[in-house]
């Protein structure tokens, strides 16, 4: 087990850090060696990537706070324009150093201003002898801002001439970031998934509730992982499940039926519930509070239906037919229209095999756009009684578009005869047609 060692920091803090970030020792030690000592200049930019919930944000945050390094932590999703982002960095910078002087709001429109203001902010404070870390979470958003933002952040050290390191956190690899004009290459660091069961076990059992012993919780996590490991390795989801089902697991202990050591009995008790929960992994169909209520009442899961149970959609009479007509128009080729919808069509020469082949391929290809007139023609032929082309019918088509059951394709010219696409599935159409 690689223990963290670094001459610049006291051993006690490092130990604490190690206990806080299990299974990430190697990454942390790499980072520490890059950071060096407080006053040393470090690498100008670091790019950290890894799959979702592999602990990037958490590790960075705990690392910087436990070692008490000056830092600015910004989420790029939240500050969606460059102006907001830069201003936020400046505001945090001002507040992290000197709380006394309440900073007035400074407008910062472009990167040039930012560099100037940044220099001012750093110069005015005692940050000069320490490395300042700017962490940009969800850095993939930077690509959507102005073109100069990302390269400029990468060489912020050079531009400002101050001791600063920019850390980018992202879920995608660096190759997708690299702008076409070329830029400073950051140091890239990969955070692997917590794929090994032991890792998950260790992390999950870390935050056990205070009223129970760690061993007890670890045993519970063991059971939980045994059930869910096959279907779900996402740490967040597992954590959610663990919290959700723990009260159930504890029930026999609370009521005194079993001791904390009686794992077998506890397993018997929890197993059916976990099986039930298994069906809804990832979906979050029912909310946490509903789940708890359900467990308290110990009722059947059938009573409280999840989100997917309410799939049935009630539609007005003609809307149903419109949707069916749209579906037919989307998935049948035009040349078959005459055959299907005309009373006196020509002879059917197609062999059965051909038809089958056609159908599967059409469903694989997805819906095709069709003009409005074709939709109406099919509608008239599938509805039994006469339908007048009233304004109501037309307005229903638009309302179906707003409901996202149909989509409009190529809406450049209204006169051009709008074309639509049907976006619902065959199952949906079947349910409607009934």
């Amino acid at each position, binding site marked *: 087990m690689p223990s963290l060692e670094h001459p610049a920091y006291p051993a006690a803090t490092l130990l604490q850090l190690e206990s806080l970030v299990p299974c990430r020792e190697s990454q942390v030690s790499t980072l520490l060696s890059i950071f060096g000592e407080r006053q040393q200049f470090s690498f100008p930019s670091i790019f950290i990537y890894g799959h*979702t919930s592999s602990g990037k944000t958490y590790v960075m945050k705990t690392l910087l706070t436990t070692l008490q390094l000056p830092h600015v932590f910004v*989420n790029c*999703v*939240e*500050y*969606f*324009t460059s102006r*907001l982002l830069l*201003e*936020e960095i400046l*505001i945090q910078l001002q507040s992290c150093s000197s709380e006394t002087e309440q900073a007035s*709001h400074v407008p910062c429109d472009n990167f040039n201003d930012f560099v100037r203001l940044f220099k001012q902010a750093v110069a005015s404070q005692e940050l000069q002898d320490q490395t300042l870390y700017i962490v940009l979470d969800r850095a993939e958003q930077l690509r959507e801002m102005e073109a100069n933002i990302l390269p400029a952040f990468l060489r912020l050290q050079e531009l400002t001439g101050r001791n600063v390191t920019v850390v980018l956190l992202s879920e995608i690899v660096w190759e997708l970031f690299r702008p076409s004009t070329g830029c400073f290459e950051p140091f890239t660091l990969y955070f692997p998934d917590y794929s090994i069961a032991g890792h998950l076990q260790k992390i999950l059992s870390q935050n056990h509730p205070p009223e129970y012993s760690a061993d007890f919780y670890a045993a519970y996590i063991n059971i939980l992982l045994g059930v869910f490991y096959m279907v779900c390795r996402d740490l*967040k*989801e597992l954590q*959610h499940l663990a919290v959700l089902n723990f009260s159930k697991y504890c029930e026999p202990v609370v009521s005194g039926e079993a001791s904390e050591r009686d794992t077998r009995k506890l397993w018997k008790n929890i197993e059916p519930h976990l099986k039930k929960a298994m069906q809804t992994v*990832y*979906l*979050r169909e*029912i*909310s*946490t*509070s*509903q789940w708890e209520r359900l467990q308290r009442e110990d009722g059947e899961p059938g009573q409280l239906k999840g*989100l*997917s149970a*309410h*799939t*049935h*959609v*009630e*539609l*007005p*009479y*003609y*809307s149903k037919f419109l949707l069916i007509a749209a579906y037919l128009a989307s998935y049948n080729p035009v040349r078959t229209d005459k055959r299907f919808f005309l009373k006196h069509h020509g002879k059917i020469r197609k062999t059965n095999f051909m038809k089958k082949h056609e159908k599967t391929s059409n469903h694989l290809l997805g819906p095709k756009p069709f003009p409005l*007139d074709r939709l109406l023609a099919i509608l008239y032929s599938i509805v039994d009684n006469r339908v*007048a*082309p*009233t*304004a*109501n*019918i*037309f*307005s*229903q088509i638009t*309302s179906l578009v*707003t*409901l*996202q*059951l149909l989509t409009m394709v190529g809406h450049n010219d*209204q*006169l*051009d*005869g709008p074309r639509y696409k049907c976006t619902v599935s065959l199952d949906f159409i079947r349910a409607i047609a009934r």
Partner: protein
Amino acid sequence: SQQIQEDLNKQLFDNLVSFLRQSHSEFQEKTTAWTCRMKSREIPTAALLLGVNVTDHDLTFRSISEVLQNNVTPYIALLEAKDCPGIKNLMQKLMGQLMNCYIDVDSLEDEDYVQVSQTRIRCSMTSLISWYESVTKKTDSETPRKKRTSSSRHWQSPPVVVVFKDMESFTTKVLQDFIVISSQHIHKLPLVLIFGIATSPMIIHSLLPHSVSSLLCIELFQSLSSKEHLSTIIDKLLLTAQFPFKLGEKVLQVLINIFLYHDFSVQNFIKGFQLCIMEHFYSQPLSVLCCQLVDMKKRVNSLSHNQCENIRRLPSFRRYVENQASEKQIALLTTDSYVKEVTQKLLEDLHVYHENYVLVLRCLHVFTSSLPKYPMGKQIRELHCACLENQVWETEEYESSLQLARMLNKSDLVTMLQRCVEILVSSSGKEFDNTVEKLKEFLTQFQKLEAEAVQEQDGSLSSEKELQKKTDLYHLQKTLLELKESRRSKKLTKFEMLRFEVVAYIDSLVRNYLVPADHKTLHEIVYFNTASILREHLNAAPRIALHTALNNPYWYLKNQALKSDGGSICNKVPDICIVYKLHLECGRLINLVDWLEAFATVVMAAEGPNAAAASSDQVDDIIHARFIRAVSELELLGFIKPSKQKTDHVARLTWGGC
């Protein structure tokens, strides 16, 4: 009529709020539970299933926000997809609404806040949070100082409710970003989201990836389906004697059809109803008499001679007159005062008829709605239509439902009778006292039967004797019973006989009270029955209207010269009509030169052969110009467009000439 409309709107609101309150009581519970569990990163979310009637949603949301504002929190933002193409706009809109609603709550600090909003606030979550903190702090400090009703109703830290009106139309990215952002700040800002969903809740999963939807704690609320909503409205509006105005059968059918076939929109139904009211009061001169019973007497007395003549001209009144004795007929036709007297009496009769009608209709509905296969329809509105249409007891469905009713088992029958009694008792009128008595009697008999069922096992002989006694007890139905007994060779049990009696009694009630309204005198005053006007107004057919306008301009212009016999193309009609008619004869691509020649021929035909000869080849410049104008007008109307395939051709767009 204005007042009635207002009445109507109020009722609608009441309805809506009452059905929303149910979902909101739950919702409030949820939010209280949430304040204590703020530590987890999930955002409490209510997914509100509203059904596809998009037009109604606006009203629903307005009343939701009203209810919330009164009971839960002053901070509500309603967001619509069309206002929020990007996350920036969304934040701006959100902050604007929240801060404004704060100003609404206490107008004292108006000046401070207007200033803030004027100095271009930074639209970010941090500023929102700081705003929220300042607001809550202020209310906290204020509460001890002065007692304010609003802050006592809300909690210490009221949640901020963000309503997404039309979840489906939001772009995925905006929603995702917003949820991610707000989940980071849920500790500081108690945010509650409400999604308005029109289709099915699966849309949440299709719009949001797992990483985002796991940040939500979704609870589903289903609002009442609009069909049920409609039936409550029909119940409250049409099936009461309270409102003097009534809808005729055909009109009601049209409105219901539009509702069921087209939009499921209660809002539109109400609008249609209002249109009916307006049309009725506008077109029917005697509609002054369509008022509450209290005002009626006064209005009848103030009728002028002309209005009396109008009354005499009503077909139903004429029928009434014809049935009277001759001297009365003369009096009715000559003296106004007598007409007034009679009118008043008749209107009162009509009112009483409505009261009775509704009650008996409900009773009948109790019976028919529990029959298998619903021969008379499941909903009371269907029954209502059937009763309005003609004499309901003559229809086949009625016969079959009576047949079925004769086969009901005892427990069902008893519960139905009990419900009938409840309905009848609930009414204030004295009309039904006997009926209630009668039904109660039936009930007691059923109870007796139950008691006797035990005794019956003793022997058939004793029961037969008792039966004899029993039949003696009610002389009223004796003859009827005997008749039935004699008719059937098989002996009926007592229960069966009683069942027959009940059904026969209900039948008699129906025959007495459910007479269709147009058999009543003076029904024209309160019934609106011109369905064709309504259909024209509500079920517009733009294509057909355009076609008739261009094909047969006489229809709209009413110019005698334009009256054509069809077939041939007359040259007096406007140019565009000629061009239109000519283009109908063409295929998908129309050659402009040919078209122009045909046009010139038609126009020249009037000027006689010599004129045509004068400009043999060369088409007159004026005609040319007229042609071009007409063609461009057609293009504007969307009938043709220039095609790229051939330069001198235009493509037809409508009725796809193949």
